[in-house]
């Protein structure tokens, strides 16, 4: 039993380390084109900060994981052997207690401080205040709708453009949009952008991001919103500024040719 127990716990340790060190292909070998068991590559400006924090914390907890699990395995292996005599008669050690309270406390405080600026950059009101509003995003059961100010750059005018499912944005620009819902909670989640924000009925929440790469990415609803939650998909298409302007023009033309100016 002693050996089995030791091996069991050791297996968990080895497994754990392996999953960290070889995170890309862990267990199942190389994945097709860019997929991995790890986070997808980030494309937003603040993605790097988030990934850095994540990696930093990962290594920190890996150290604690290895330390504590290692000690556990060692003690189980060493002290479950049949031996003569009694166990060490000790009720604790004050100095040791101070050390293992102090070191984690310091590390935890460091983590706490490290993330404050990143958080403030992403979510604080200051990050979006006073910036040009790019679009309004409405979530509802079970689709995404995007409203653009259109050619005149103002909301609430006749040339506003509405798009369902597809959110087209220009690359390398700060995109500020208002997130709204008029039925239940939803959540705007784009894994590659490292962006998630719930849409709360009754609230208008300003959100921003800046995608550094062109491409199409999944937009996912990440908050339970009813039976169709699993299929509430959208798509973000990041294009160059020129393409984006062209898209707006095309959309406007389409709108008027369909005679849909009933705003």
């Amino acid at each position, binding site marked *: 039993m002693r050996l089995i127990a030791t091996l069991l716990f050791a297996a968990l340790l080895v497994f754990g380390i392996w999953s960290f060190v070889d995170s890309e292909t862990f267990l199942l070998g190389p994945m097709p084109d860019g997929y991995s068991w790890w986070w997808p590559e980030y494309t937003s400006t603040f993605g790097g900060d988030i990934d850095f924090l994540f990696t930093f914390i990962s290594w920190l907890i890996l150290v604690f994981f290895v330390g504590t699990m290692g000690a556990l395995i060692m003690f189980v292996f060493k002290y479950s052997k049949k031996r003569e005599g009694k166990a060490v008669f000790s009720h604790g050690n004050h100095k040791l207690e101070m050390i293992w309270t102090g070191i984690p406390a310091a590390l935890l405080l460091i983590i706490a401080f490290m993330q404050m600026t990143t958080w403030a950059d992403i979510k604080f009101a200051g990050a979006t205040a*006073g*910036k040009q509003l790019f679009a309004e995003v409405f979530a509802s059961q079970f689709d995404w709708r995007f409203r653009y100010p259109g050619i005149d750059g103002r909301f609430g005018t006749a040339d506003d453009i509405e798009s369902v499912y597809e959110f087209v944005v220009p690359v390398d620009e700060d995109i500020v949009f208002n997130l709204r819902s008029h039925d239940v909670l939803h959540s705007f989640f784009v894994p590659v952008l490292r962006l998630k924000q719930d849409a709360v009925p009754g609230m208008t929440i300003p959100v921003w991001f800046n995608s550094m790469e062109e491409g199409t990415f999944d937009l996912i609803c990440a908050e339970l919103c009813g039976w169709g939650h699993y299929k509430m998909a959208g798509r973000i298409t990041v294009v160059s500024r020129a393409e984006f302007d062209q898209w707006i023009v095309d959309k406007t033309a389409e709108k008027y040719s369909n005679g849909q100016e009933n705003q």
Partner: protein
Amino acid sequence: MSEHEHPTFNANKIMITLMVLTAIEVAWGSLVPYDWKFALWGGLLAFAMWKGILIFMYFMHMKFEGWICKALIAPTPILIAVVFFALLPDIALNDRLIHEVGDQLDPVDGTIVEIGYGSRAVNPAAHK
């Protein structure tokens, strides 16, 4: 049976104080204009607290209780404060709320009251 000599306090006096305070309170509530929030609320809250403390200390004789009963109640004021102050920024002072103002007819006296929230739109600048 009881563990200690029972506190003797003049219950009649406390009762009369409570009565008087209530009377003043009602007067305060009706005399101070509804818009003088600070004076109205401040005064009323002070009176209510005063009365509450009188009841708590004397009628419930917490004043004469041992430390143990005090300790049992001690966490509650802290938690009350925690709940209240954590709810404030999100519910009471939430500047992301945006609702159209809905005028409603008062069911009792038929006057128009505003229920719901004013348009406190975010980023008015962004909207131009």
